[in-house]
């Protein structure tokens, strides 16, 4: 073969042959040293290592790591101090008994501590003796965290004081919390907004007509200060107010039922009462949860407007806010005395929307403080569970979708979420409930950031034939040329 070729072409000079070899080697090395790594770099996915083991561990041991107790302070004269010990023993055995009936999800205790309370956030029990032999009684103050137990002769003589105290604590004050831990109740009412440590409240005065109205904003502020006081320890609150005129009714007047000369809003109407597009309630600047409270004053032609079956002419919209319809206003103004009952209704709605358990006889006490405390403590555990669930779903996701990126950024947030969870558990176990709640919220946010990481977008699906279509024209010519060159070099 080579002989017949040499007849047509003159033999290649030596230097040209070495040049050809040089060209081949350089082309080949460019492909291997530059092309292949470049191809590999641009097509490979970066998948950082998730701390799978740690998260699974945390998920299985979360509830067992939590063991918190609620302190109750009791001040007693020295000779009666033995009562503390006896009551504590009784409390422990009663809780153990309850736990054996329906096991608690976490290790939960109540401790009775002799001495005055350390801060306003602690519970104080006071023992009082009654003159009347059968005059035993109980007063859980709705104003502050104070419980007054009045013992009568009968109780003292029969040595029932520890029993009385423990019954008050477990059956009157903490019953709801215990039932939730036992799994007999759920905290979810379907009305409350998802927990976040920031909350925006808007108070809106809507008028159907254009007659000017004045509302006493300084007393509104004062009422709000009071209404929000119990949430200030852990919520970052922002309040906005607005007045809007000509806020037209979202429901056609002709569709309203007229009864006794009143326009009636039935339950069907209520769910579409809010006029989202016209009432300026939308806020695109914040992603924090928002609750809207609306005072609606209908125009002359739809007055009086009544909410069916509502004593206070008001209603509550799940996860959104509260509405109150006001038909009678005097002198076109809302004074301090007018605002008081309105704000009372809104406060009640606010409690429900935030998720404070309702006051039910012998389940929850009337005291708003104690109920808010109970909600806070239960929220901590819910938040921790949620944060861990978020991390778990991140793991399942990364396992299931093999073409998804996992950047280092995600790992950072995962680690910080885990740290927050651990710290929150520590704080909870050492009775620092407010800090624990904040940390548990931080844990949720961090785990969300990890899950919703901007760079974690899956590559679009490519069918195999598409890959062929991309690679063939690209690789085909290169492979052909290098192969032919290689053959020629080898021949010589």
């Amino acid at each position, binding site marked *: 073969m080579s002989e017949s070729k040499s007849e047509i072409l003159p033999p290649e000079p030596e230097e040209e042959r070495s040049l050809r070899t040089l060209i081949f080697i350089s082309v080949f090395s460019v492909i291997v040293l530059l092309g292949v790594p470049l191809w590999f770099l641009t097509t490979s996915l970066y998948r950082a290592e998730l701390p799978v083991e740690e998260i699974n561990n945390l998920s299985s041991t979360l509830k067992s790591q939590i063991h918190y107790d609620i302190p109750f302070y009791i001040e007693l004269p020295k000779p009666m101090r033995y009562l503390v010990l006896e009551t504590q023993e009784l409390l422990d055995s009663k809780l153990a008994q309850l736990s054996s009936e329906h096991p608690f999800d976490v290790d939960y205790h109540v401790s009775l501590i002799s001495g005055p309370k350390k801060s306003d956030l602690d519970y104080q029990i006071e023992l009082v003796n009654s003159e009347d032999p059968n005059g035993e009684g109980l007063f859980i103050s709705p104003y502050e965290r104070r419980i007054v137990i009045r013992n009568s002769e009968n109780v003292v003589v029969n040595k029932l004081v520890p029993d009385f105290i423990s019954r008050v604590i477990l059956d009157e004050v903490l019953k709801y919390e215990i039932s939730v831990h036992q799994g007999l109740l759920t905290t979810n009412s379907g009305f409350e907004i998802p927990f976040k440590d920031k909350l925006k409240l808007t108070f809106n005065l809507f008028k159907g007509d254009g007659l000017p109205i004045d509302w006493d904003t300084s007393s509104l502020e004062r009422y709000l*200060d009071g209404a929000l006081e119990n949430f200030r320890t852990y919520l970052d609150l922002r309040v906005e107010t607005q007045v809007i005129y000509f806020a037209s009714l979202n429901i056609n007047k002709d569709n309203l039922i007229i009864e006794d000369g009143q326009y009636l809003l039935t339950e069907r109407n209520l769910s579409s009462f*809010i006029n989202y597009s016209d009432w300026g309630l939308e806020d695109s600047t914040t992603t924090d949860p928002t609750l809207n409270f609306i005072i609606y004053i209908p125009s002359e032609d739809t007055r009086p407007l009544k909410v069916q079956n509502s004593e206070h002419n008001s209603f509550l*919209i799940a996860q959104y806010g509260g509405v109150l319809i006001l038909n009678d206003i005097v002198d076109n103004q809302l004074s301090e005395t007018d605002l008081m009952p309105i704000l009372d209704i809104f406060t009640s709605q606010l409690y429900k929307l935030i998720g404070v358990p309702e006051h039910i006889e012998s389940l929850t006490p009337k005291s708003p403080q104690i109920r808010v405390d109970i909600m806070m403590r239960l929220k901590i555990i819910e938040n921790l569970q949620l944060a861990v669930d978020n991390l778990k779903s991140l793991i399942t996701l990364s396992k299931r979708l093999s073409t998804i990126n996992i950047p280092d950024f995600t790992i950072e947030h995962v680690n910080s979420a885990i740290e927050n969870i651990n710290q929150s558990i520590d704080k909870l176990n050492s009775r620092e409930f407010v800090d624990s709640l904040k940390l548990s919220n931080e844990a949720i946010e961090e785990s969300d950031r990890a899950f919703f990481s901007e760079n974690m977008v899956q590559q679009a699906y490519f069918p195999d034939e598409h890959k062929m279509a991309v690679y063939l024209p690209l690789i085909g010519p290169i492979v052909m040329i290098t192969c032919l060159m290689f053959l020629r070099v080898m021949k010589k």
Partner: protein
Amino acid sequence: MKILYILLGILCCVAASSNTDDDQKSTHTNNWAVLVSSSRFWFNYRHMANVLSFYRTVKRLGIPDSQIILMMSDDVACNPRNAFPGSVFNNKDRALDLYGDNIEVDYRGYEVTVENFIRLLTDRWGPDHPRSKRLLTDENSNIFIYLTGHGGEDFLKFQDAEEISSYDIADAFQQMAEKKRYNEIFFMIDTCQANTMYSKFYSPNILAVGSSRLDESSYSHHSDTELGVAVIDRFTYYNLEFLEQIEKDSNKTMADLFETYTFEDIHSHAGIRTDLYNRNLSKVLLTDFFGNVQKVEVGNLEDDLLYLAMTNEDGSPKQFSAQLSQHRQTNVSSDRKPRPLNKDSSKENYINLESTEPPLVRKLLIALLLVSTLGFTYTLK
């Protein structure tokens, strides 16, 4: 052993009966809609009309604009070829201008991409992505997703540049399910071979309908001779025809809607996928997806909470740890008087209790700006 079986049977019965009770009502508390027209250019007028018609419908039935994500190229209303500038019609009678009032397009023009669509569903955005362009759903949200455009087997073309496959959407839904980002999804797609697009779904609680089978085309309904283009697709047209009769408080169900799908009308075989969906279709209200019916409670108010918050046990007024009025004033600089409340109530009076940033920062910024301008003019010389 027998007793065990009997017990098991009873248990099953109880479970089943409680299940049917739950079937009756949807448990969602909010509604969202994602409406996407994935095509572009004048000749795809009908896709824009499709999507705007649904936009109008869901808005009419009460979903607020902040909960509607509208994605479309938006290049027909003001197209030079449009004989009716600024208007989009979905019928040759031109009775209803879809572009008429208050259209809020969230993603327009070249923002309509596969990546943005996937990011939207999975909510993976940078920190400064605006709220109005995000799908901020939670476990209580029902989502209606409508896609229209040009598609084929297992893909939908996005603006002649790229395509999304059925696998991508299925995976995105799975990510949403994993993160509890929805209660139920109603997926509707009007494109050629549309039924292939939902065939790869594997996440729970998704109800899907498509306009046409594999190897079938979806057809347009009719053309407007003055516009010179088809104005609406058949499948969408007949859906809308039914939905037009629906009011906010309608009791019509999904089953009622699906019964109206006939080959004579649509000219292709509309597909319905229910295997991922647990509820009985004749119990699923259309307003569960197209409307925004909120859970409402009348009455059941607790008294005296405000009074308790305002007063001490002895009846004296309580002192509060934080005060809104103080809060507002402290944000205003000390050398200026606190802003008086706007007593002139003839105007809209919007009191923001949070004030803007302190003036010190502003002064510094102005100083910085001045210095940099001076420096810049100096270097120019």
